[in-house]
């Protein structure tokens, strides 16, 4: 066996208990770092996935960023007007299918229109307020998770009868309606439509399940009292990172306000960055503290072995060789601690991943853990670097011992 390694192992073994404590320190540092990183990145990815998956990447709404110009402004260019009564423009996106056709021609992704209406749903003399969203079943699947959230029916069932409706499961429960029942939907203007329940929705978010209902576009348009107009276009793009640019292009082309998921969640995304910064600071601090333990052990060993160092140097060992003995000892602790820490970190991630959180507002969820070799490599790298530094400082001091002083003292 290599001489330096041989001596290093002997030293480490002679201080077994302290070495194990130091090793545990490194292992804990690495383990908790891996766990923290897995948890943080897991929740971040989960969060972004929910943002990106559950919601459309770009939402085009019937708003405009600037109020439409008034005819008077076109006429008198120098003055600003205030208090003008607006033109009676109906809110909504006009000619939705023409816009869809033009977007389809260049957009890599999918577009689906929707209409919003408020209504009261009545069944067997019980009523409840609901949001009725009119959708295009053929396009909806490409932009939302709605098809997967349906129970006892599919989106296609909306075509089955003239006024088919899908109800949130809690909403249906509240009024006691089931699939196949006929319910009354009352619009805000007092119009009453008779609809057949064709499916139930379970999204897991109670707010949605209690208030949402889906119909075909035309049914919702009747409830909203507007024909030929939709309220929003939801767009999914193939490259989610390009959503911001695409939104800009769509807005320029159509004039309707188009908001990308990044723009909609700007503050959340910057909060995530701050969170990451805090995480890396904490992880770095944990590993730094762990390296204090290593420093302590190597210092102790070098003090105990001063005579051995003097002997080795008198025999003709160079300072470099002596230094490498103690540096190696620190690395042995660092490497063993890192390996153990990886196992510990993985176990912690697994354990946290099985924890179930129950909430009255959501379905039971597990902590989203993310497993990445990068976390392990990063924690290991920091731990080893810290160990090397923690070992180098006492090693350098030990190697500079003057053998004559020790030999004189011991003789």
């Amino acid at each position: 066996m290599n001489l330096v390694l041989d001596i290093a192992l002997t030293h480490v073994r002679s201080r077994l208990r302290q070495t194990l404590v130091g090793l545990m320190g490194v292992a804990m540092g690495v383990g908790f770092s891996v766990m923290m990183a897995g948890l943080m990145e897991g929740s971040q990815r989960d969060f972004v996935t929910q943002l990106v998956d559950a919601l459309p990447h770009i939402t085009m709404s019937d708003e405009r960023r600037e109020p439409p110009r008034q005819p008077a402004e076109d006429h008198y260019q120098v003055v600003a007007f205030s208090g003008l009564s607006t033109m009676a423009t109906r809110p909504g996106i006009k000619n939705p299918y023409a816009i869809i056709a033009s977007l389809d021609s260049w957009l890599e992704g999918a577009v689906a229109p929707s209409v919003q209406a408020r209504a009261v749903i009545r069944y067997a003399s019980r009523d409840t307020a609901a949001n009725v969203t009119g959708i295009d079943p053929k396009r909806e699947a490409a932009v939302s998770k709605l098809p997967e959230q349906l129970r006892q029916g599919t989106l296609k069932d909306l075509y089955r009868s003239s006024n088919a409706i899908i109800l949130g499961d809690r909403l249906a429960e509240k009024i006691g309606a089931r699939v196949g029942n006929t319910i009354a939907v009352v619009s805000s203007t007092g119009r009453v439509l008779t609809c057949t329940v064709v499916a139930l929705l379970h999204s897991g978010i109670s707010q949605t399940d209690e208030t949402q209902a889906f119909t075909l576009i035309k049914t919702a348009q009747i409830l909203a009292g507007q024909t030929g107009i939709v309220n929003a276009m939801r767009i999914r793009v193939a490259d989610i990172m390009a959503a911001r640019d695409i939104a800009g292009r769509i807005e320029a082309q159509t004039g309707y306000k188009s908001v990308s998921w990044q723009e909609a969640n700007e503050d959340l995304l910057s909060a995530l960055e701050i969170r990451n910064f805090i995480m890396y600071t904490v992880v770095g601090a944990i590993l730094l503290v762990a390296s204090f333990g290593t420093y302590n052990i190597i210092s102790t060993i070098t003090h105990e072995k001063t005579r051995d160092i003097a002997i080795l140097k008198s025999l003709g060992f160079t300072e470099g060789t002596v230094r490498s003995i103690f540096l190696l000892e620190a690395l042995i602790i660092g490497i063993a601690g890192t390996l153990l820490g990886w196992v510990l970190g993985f176990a912690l991630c697994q354990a946290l991943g099985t924890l179930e959180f129950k909430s009255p507002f959501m379905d039971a969820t597990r902590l989203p853990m993310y497993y990445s070799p990068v976390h392990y490599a990063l924690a290991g790298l920091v731990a080893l670097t810290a160990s090397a530094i923690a070992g180098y400082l006492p090693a350098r001091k030990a190697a500079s011992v003057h053998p004559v002083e020790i030999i004189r003292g011991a003789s």
Partner: protein
Amino acid sequence: MTIQLPVTTPLIELRHVTKTIGDGVETTLVRDISMKIEPGEFVAITGPSGSGKSSLLYLLGLLDVPTSGQVLMQGRPVPADSETERARLRLKLLGFVFQFHFLLVEFSALTNVMLPMRALGERSERAMKDRAMKLLTSLGLEAHAHKLPGQLSGGQRQRVAIARALANEPQVILADEPTGNLDSASSEQVLAVLRQLVDETKRSVVMVTHDLALAARADRHVRIVDGRLID
């Protein structure tokens, strides 16, 4: 054409070597000493306690550097500023035996003897082990090769230390009171080993002792008083 002079180069030569320590209050350990250690010579250094015997030995053994004057190994000046170079010279050419055995207590006698060979790295593991075993056997320690220093007697430890000093076939053995801690029988054994080394392998030995009877058995006897050589 060069003419080969029939003069041997001294193994170690000191030229007007002085060693002072301490800044502020200076202590002179060794004063203006010039001496030569020739090949195949057994030199004894004696003197009163505190006269500078050990200090002189450390200078001869390149463990210490002089404050002024020059040290030459095999005719070449030893660089005072390169500890690495002096370490290399110690490893290849010099062997030390001290009053205290200075063995590594966690390693067996055999491993201790192998240490300098492994540091030099010129032999295979097998050859190192064979040589270490042979050295221990020649010192009557074949039965104790695998014992730890703590399991050996004082005389046995000192012989292990001698075996270790001999590991790399050094030109000079420097011994500082090698029999200081031993009874007369063990002392006799150690001295016999050193004597044999000089007589049979033409190595040189420099031995510091306060025992004049031992010193009388050396080829040459050097006295030192208050850091100075006296003839």
